[in-house]
């Protein structure tokens, strides 16, 4: 034996199958019937709630289940029921409805040319609102563009949010950002980016800093299921695991990334919650249209982080009922009836049904509140428009364009400002 190579293998049998490239099919197409056969029907109340201190491994089976509290009759069942008082539930309902009313109004404002762009979170209100309710007001949020409900539920004035969308003279962001890319330090709401995913490691870094300082505030972040393919998702999970950062990492799986179904993001035959397993992180998978389940799961993950047991990843399973944005036309890529046939219903209807069942609410109050909120939003919009709209202005003056690039303006920017004649 003086050779170092494997003996010649028989040439691959010509009968052996040829390789084939798998491309996830795009279905159902517009015109076809909605098909949610890929979504198992998980019963409410079936998942047990472990102690917040359990080893991460103990949570891994949850990656393939779905934590649900509200059953089909609007009954709150199971271990994950946070047992919230009716007054708080009504506030939550109101916040979700206000979010929806706000979205509807601003979407129309865009259609009327008063703003350039808008993004709704219709059908996903239980996420921003339910999580805001479960977190401490000063827990630092690193959201993406579909958590406006969080800002609303933290009591931030719609007027201020609208002025940002109008890019008017009262826009706290000085007309620099696309509508909905809010930043509100006072509400512990981090500056939204256009770049998908980048907030995820920011939350981990903030949480590491909070732990480094012996603080008690945790960080919370959100990412869309489509954006989990970005590097920042991997970075956030790796660093959160290595440094046991006190952070809650939410994946909002609303089934769509513009026109791409969650299969394209790698959701086929697995779940986004299960991405946490390999990093040794805790994970929960939650019915994102169930206010109580969202609240309960978030409360658990936040308490776990606060107790130095480390990070939890939560997959919030929901459906993007709205178009991706005002620039999008879903009728080109999905059946019109998909939203209505989403197996897990609508978060507002479901919480409302629950309150009614508790005898704490009524269809009448529901309708009345809806129109109250619509009026409130319309009024606020009128007021905001007094400070200007994108169409008419006034906007911040052009010379402010050169500010905040650096803390102090260097000579070349001063000179460019002069060049502009300011």
């Amino acid at each position, binding site marked *: 034996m003086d050779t170092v190579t494997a003996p010649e293998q028989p040439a691959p049998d010509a009968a052996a199958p040829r390789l084939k*490239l798998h*491309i*996830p*099919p*795009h279905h159902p*197409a517009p015109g076809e019937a909605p098909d949610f056969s890929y979504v198992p029907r998980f019963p409410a109340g079936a998942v047990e709630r472990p102690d917040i201190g359990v080893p991460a491994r103990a949570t891994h089976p949850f990656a393939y289940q779905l934590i649900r509290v509200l059953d089909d009759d609007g009954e709150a069942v199971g271990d994950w029921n946070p047992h919230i008082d009716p007054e708080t539930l009504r506030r939550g309902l109101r916040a979700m409805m206000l979010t929806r009313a706000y979205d509807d109004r601003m979407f129309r404002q865009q259609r009327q040319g008063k703003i*350039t*762009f808008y993004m709704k979170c219709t059908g996903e209100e239980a996420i921003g609102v339910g999580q805001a309710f479960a977190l401490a007001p000063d827990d630092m949020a690193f959201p993406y563009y579909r958590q406006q409900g969080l800002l609303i539920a933290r009591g931030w004035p719609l007027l201020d949010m609208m002025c940002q969308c109008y*890019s008017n003279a009262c*826009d706290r962001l*000085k*007309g*620099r*950002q*696309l509508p909905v*890319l809010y930043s509100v330090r006072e509400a512990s709401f981090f500056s939204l*980016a*256009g*770049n*998908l*995913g980048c907030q995820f490691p920011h939350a981990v870094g903030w949480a590491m800093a909070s732990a480094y300082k012996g603080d008690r505030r945790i960080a919370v972040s959100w990412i869309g299921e*489509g*954006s989990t*393919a*970005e*590097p920042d998702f991997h970075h956030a999970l790796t660093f959160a695991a290595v440094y046991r950062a006190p952070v809650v990492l939410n994946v909002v799986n609303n089934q769509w*990334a*513009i*026109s*791409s179904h969650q299969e*394209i*993001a*790698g959701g086929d035959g697995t779940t986004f919650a299960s991405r946490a397993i390999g990093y040794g992180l805790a994970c929960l998978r939650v019915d994102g249209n169930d206010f109580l389940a969202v609240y309960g799961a978030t409360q658990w993950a936040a308490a776990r982080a606060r107790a130095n047991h480390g990070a939890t990843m939560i997959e919030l399973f929901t459906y993007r009922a709205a178009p991706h944005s005002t*620039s999008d036309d879903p009728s*080109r*890529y999905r059946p019109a009836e998909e939203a209505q046939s989403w197996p897990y219903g609508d978060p507002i209807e479901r919480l409302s049904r629950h309150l009614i069942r508790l005898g704490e609410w009524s269809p009448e109050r529901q309708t009345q509140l809806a129109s109250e909120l619509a009026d409130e939003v319309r009024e606020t919009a009128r007021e905001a428009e007094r400070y200007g709209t*994108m169409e008419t202005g006034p*906007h*911040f003056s*052009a010379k*402010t*364009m*050169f500010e905040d*690039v650096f803390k102090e303006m260097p000579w*070349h*920017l001063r000179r*460019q400002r002069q060049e*502009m004649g300011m």
Partner: protein
Amino acid sequence: MPAMTMVQALNSALEVMLARDPGVVIFGEDVGFYGGVFRVTEGLQQKHGQERVFDTPIAEGGMLGVAVGMGAYGLRPVVEIQFADYIYPATDQLISAAARLRYRSGGEFWAPITVRAPCGGGIFGGQTHSQSVEAIFTHVCGLKTVIPSNPYDAKGLLISAIEDDDPVVFFEPKRLYHGPFDGHPERPAVPWSAHKQAEVPEGYFAVPLGRAAVVREGAAVTVLVYGTMVHVALAAAEEAGIDAEIVDLRTLLPLDIDTIVDSVKKTGRCVIAHEATRTCGFGAELAALVQEHCFYHLEAPIVRVTGWDTPYPHALEWDYFPGPARVADGLRRALEG
């Protein structure tokens, strides 16, 4: 010949190459069933099948990573980055892998990849849907960079880019997708149909990389531009009534130095205009080259008219954009010297 918009011309180039070369595959975010957020790949999956035109996960770096592997196998991947602003996650694969593969392997492997990305402002996209990032890539040895200004060039250059055996970054000025834009947002939008460069052959043809086009002859001053700024410069020259010679670079790297030098030696004056931020923008390289090659012919300092060194501000878009007034002013400065 049919009149095409820039979107139709790009779509036609992809169509032609899919038909000619079974090694061509097209992928990116939303490019498959949907046809792309700017509709450039519309209908291509339906016609050529999902194995050849498909959606990818939202991972620009991943797209480039697999493209390099596909190229090594022998395919010709055409990757769409949804906005040039989102190309940063792909820079490592573009620079460390695609651009360096031929060199580091002694010519054993190479990366025949085309990366398409809409660039520039003019649609109120704010700072993350308006960037012009070409100068980052023109600094990278091993990459070619192309920016067309009209439908005819867009198709011919994209075909050349796809056929090229080196990686090409192909930026598409999104404000030109549906019509030429002279930098006057207040005026009604003009369709391409009226434009002579919108007459585009249906079939195969190539516009070679590395050749500029003189789009306006003149004796008073040379204007070096590309993409949207070609149209803005034309408007500025007309409005200022200046006898400017306007050069559409079309390919930034390899650059058509001869056309540039001939023009500047003739006019003795030079204005460079681009939408990208000024400092270390491609205009810096152009200024450096022009003074190196034409120093003794220059009668006045080379003038740069560019986007400001700030992010692209949403509401103040037209204060940021280097429109005809600013370019005309630059022309006057170049003439006064």
